């Protein structure tokens, strides 16, 4: 108990990054994630790293690219409209196979939207986001401890697969304060950084580029990336199962929505409804196999998102018509209560006559 501390989401994420060896932070202010750069500004000075507020989001992501190319663990963070501006840089990171962490503390949208919690950037995060044929691993933590642990892990994933990695939180994940254990980094075997630009003394020069004009060479680069993404599809998917053993209806939700859904599951259980929760922790690669396994037994799914419905596409793809799937969403920055979701579950239960 004594090693626990109360930490705000943004602070926990920043501290985990420092512990993971991140020594370069570049960003541009935007609510609701400003506490993250604030924390970084203080801590980077203490650990001898670099904190720099770029002149824009575009400048910041390209500074990340430069730092990653020189072999430093680097990150940036922003919120929805700012992340849109960073997409070109993320595409370049993917093309150049450079590791980096990008944090999106989502707010309401489209456009400037509003600063309340929202999950409207799921498509952007999981479909690559920028131009070109690429993917980025996306993690969606649902507690501050998990946010801390996943941030550390995300840097390892970035190094192992040489890829930009995204953490997708929302305004609630950024602001909430919870007990957290600030674990030290577990050293794991990482591939040597034999691609970095650190001066070509006593070795041939290296080139990191994304312009490949030879068609066949470009095709091979695309297939190479594809093989890497397939490898990640096999190894990275993570999800949490809650009260699923005897469940007749499964709620699928991630991040803050999953916390609320978990409360709803507990309430529904008290009413005698056999409801469970599946919470994807990785949004890409999506836990498709897990859902397919469950769909062999369970025939009713309810997707709940704080948007008008984006992750539901991945659930429907996974189900392939083998189970019924409904959607409930609250966009615009509304954070519904567990009671509200319990009501939706009850309605679904009666309409589908699940018991009968």
């Amino acid at each position, binding site marked *: 108990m004594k090693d626990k501390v109360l930490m705000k989401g943004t602070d926990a994420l920043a501290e985990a990054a420092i512990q993971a060896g991140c020594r370069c932070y570049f960003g541009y202010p935007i609510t609701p994630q400003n506490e993250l750069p604030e924390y970084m500004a203080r801590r980077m000075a203490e650990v001898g790293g670099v904190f720099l507020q770029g002149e824009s989001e575009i400048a910041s992501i390209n500074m990340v690219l430069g730092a990653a190319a020189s072999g430093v663990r680097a990150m940036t963070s922003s919120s929805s409209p700012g992340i849109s501006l960073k997409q070109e840089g993320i595409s370049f990171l993917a093309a150049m196979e450079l590791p980096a962490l990008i944090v999106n503390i989502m707010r309401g949208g489209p456009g400037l939207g509003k600063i309340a919690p929202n999950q409207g950037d799921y498509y952007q995060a999981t479909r690559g986001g920028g131009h070109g044929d690429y993917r980025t691993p996306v993690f969606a933590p649902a507690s501050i401890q998990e946010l801390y642990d996943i941030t550390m892990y995300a840097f390892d994933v970035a190094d192992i697969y040489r890829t930009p990695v995204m953490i997708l939180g929302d305004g609630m994940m950024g*602001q909430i*304060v919870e007990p957290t254990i600030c674990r030290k980094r577990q050293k794991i075997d990482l591939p040597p950084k034999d691609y970095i630009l650190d001066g070509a003394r006593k070795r041939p020069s290296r080139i990191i580029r994304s312009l490949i004009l030879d068609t066949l060479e470009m095709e091979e680069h695309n297939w190479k990336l594809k093989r890497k993404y397939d490898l990640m599809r096999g190894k990275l998917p993570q999800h949490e199962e809650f009260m699923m053993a005897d469940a007749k209806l499964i709620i699928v939700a991630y991040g803050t929505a999953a916390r609320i859904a978990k409360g709803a599951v507990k309430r529904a259980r008290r009413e005698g409804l056999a409801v469970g929760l599946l919470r994807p922790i990785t949004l890409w690669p999506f836990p498709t196999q897990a859902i397919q396994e469950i769909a062999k037994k369970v025939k009713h799914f309810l997707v709940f998102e704080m948007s008008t419905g984006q992750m539901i596409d991945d659930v429907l793809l996974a189900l392939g018509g083998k189970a019924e799937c409904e959607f409930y969403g609250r966009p615009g920055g509304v*954070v519904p209560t567990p009671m509200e979701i319990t009501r939706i579950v009850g309605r679904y239960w009666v309409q589908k006559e699940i018991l009968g």
Partner: protein
Amino acid sequence: MLIKTVMSGIGGQGILFSGLCMAWAAMYEGHFVTYLPSYGAEMRGGVTSCTIAISDEEIASPIPSAPDYLVLMDNLSLARLQSQCASGGEVFINTSIVSDRPIRGDIELVEIPVTDLAESSIGVRYANMIMLGAFIGRTHLVKASTIIGNMDKILGKEKARFKDKNIEAINIGLEYTSKET
């Protein structure tokens, strides 16, 4: 069992810190706890509140749906929050500043003139901690000794010099509760 408390006031009154103290204590006493601050863009004078959820199991939602306790430091907070309070809940009011009273009949009112108490003792800036002392003295949601014993950690190095006065203020609140309510 899940108990939610909303503390609300004007930015600068220190209500976020009072709530944070309670959250730290709940954590040290082995409970699940979430603390969700909410504040305006102003450095001083904005609408400021925090929600502390304490439970013996994982907390689903940190937002205040129907709080069991309200701690209100100004009129606006009362107007904004009284309708949200759970039926049968308790409302703590800083009567030095709050001139209105709840219009609901199904909630219990606890009146404490914390700003006056602070001004006549250790200074108006500690009204928030007197309120905290009075609040936990009556509700026993956490132990005052847990907060006092961990004040160093809660304050951190930068604010360590405020330790003694904060503790004194909590004790004034505790004493007031034991006598008056």
